[in-house]
């Protein structure tokens, strides 16, 4: 065996448990070749060092975050499957489930039972109509003000939620409308 062959087949020697190779020829070469002996030592020592340095520690809140993610992912998926309702409702339900479920998940937490609380019935009524912040006239050239922004229904009550949560709302408030963000 020469040095080139030793390098090319080195893994057969290092992973002897994985190969059907007899180590004799490798060992004979190592006995007679200081360069390849050094190579083998460097690999062994380097790997030993790499193993001895522990990686980053698991963050303290790792399990809490994981519990949160699992509840969230599971409930959103379940809600979507069930009735195809909007992601907003699913997220709200997920948040409620997290509040209810935190601490009750057995595998990680030590709390094994959750108290049962009788709550009074909830009656809901329609929310008050909020004042809608009308967009101010855009202080920019007309070609940068898309025509659909003037559509009368866009700012109507039924679109309040959409409007207030869209990029348009914030950009108008800042008075720095450049693009609509809708493509």
């Amino acid at each position: 065996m020469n040095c080139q062959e030793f390098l090319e087949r080195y893994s057969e020697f290092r992973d002897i448990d994985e190969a059907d190779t007899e180590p004799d020829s490798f060992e004979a070469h190592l006995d007679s070749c200081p360069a390849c002996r050094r190579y083998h030592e460097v690999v062994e020592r380097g790997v030993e060092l790499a193993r001895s340095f522990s990686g980053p520690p698991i963050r303290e809140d790792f399990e809490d975050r994981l519990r949160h993610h699992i509840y969230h992912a599971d409930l959103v998926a379940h809600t979507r499957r069930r009735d195809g309702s909007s992601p907003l409702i699913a997220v709200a339900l997920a948040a409620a489930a997290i509040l209810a479920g935190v601490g009750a998940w057995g595998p990680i937490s030590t709390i094994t039972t959750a108290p049962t609380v009788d709550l009074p019935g909830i009656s809901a009524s329609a929310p008050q109509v909020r004042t809608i912040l009308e967009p101010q006239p855009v202080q920019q050239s007309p070609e940068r003000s898309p025509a659909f922004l003037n559509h009368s229904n866009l700012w109507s009550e039924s679109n309040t939620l959409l409007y207030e949560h869209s990029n348009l709302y914030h950009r108008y408030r800042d008075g720095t409308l450049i693009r609509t963000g809708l493509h």
Partner: protein
Amino acid sequence: MFAEKKTHDAFGVIPAGDTRKELASLGDSEVVQKFLDGEERAFGELVRRYDSRLLNFVYRTVGDRERAQDLVQETFVRVYRHLHRFDQSKKFSTWIYTIAGNLAKNELRNRSRNPLVLFQAIKKNWDADHRPLEWEDEAYKPDDLFRKRHLKEKVDEAVQQLPEHHRIVFVLRELEGRTYEEIAEITDTNLGTVKSRLNRARNNFARIIAPMVD
């Protein structure tokens, strides 16, 4: 799914302490079966068994502590949601490493969306696969204090300098102790590819680390 499991758990069919001890004494496949049977605590046992190991593996692969934590979180979320699809004739550890490995690979792929970065990565991979294997022990040896101070950095750096497809097999074999077959499954390659990449990865690693090693 949740309601059923939570109810079962909340009733505390078995006291928590005993359950934990019992779970800790089981093999992976039995813990998986417990979870599938509705024992939620079994998932906690899997998390305890694999969180640090996966974090090490993913961190070594992507080289970013914070992202590694996120990717390990995502791995467990996927395990939780898809465990019922896991083929129980296979090893659970291989399956969970495959999920983590795929997430790590996606992370690296997303980083190389820039065409220039992508080109450099392809070139680096090509060079690493085709460069003749060589070994020349350089005479340079830093003094002891310097060496001690920088050893950890150098070792980490040596692993990070390996091209992605060499790094992942190197980490799985040398730092995680996986078999060739497991590595082939985790990286979705064949045994021959695993062997050749591993040999080249070791050669590269040795050349980088040599000046620091007595």
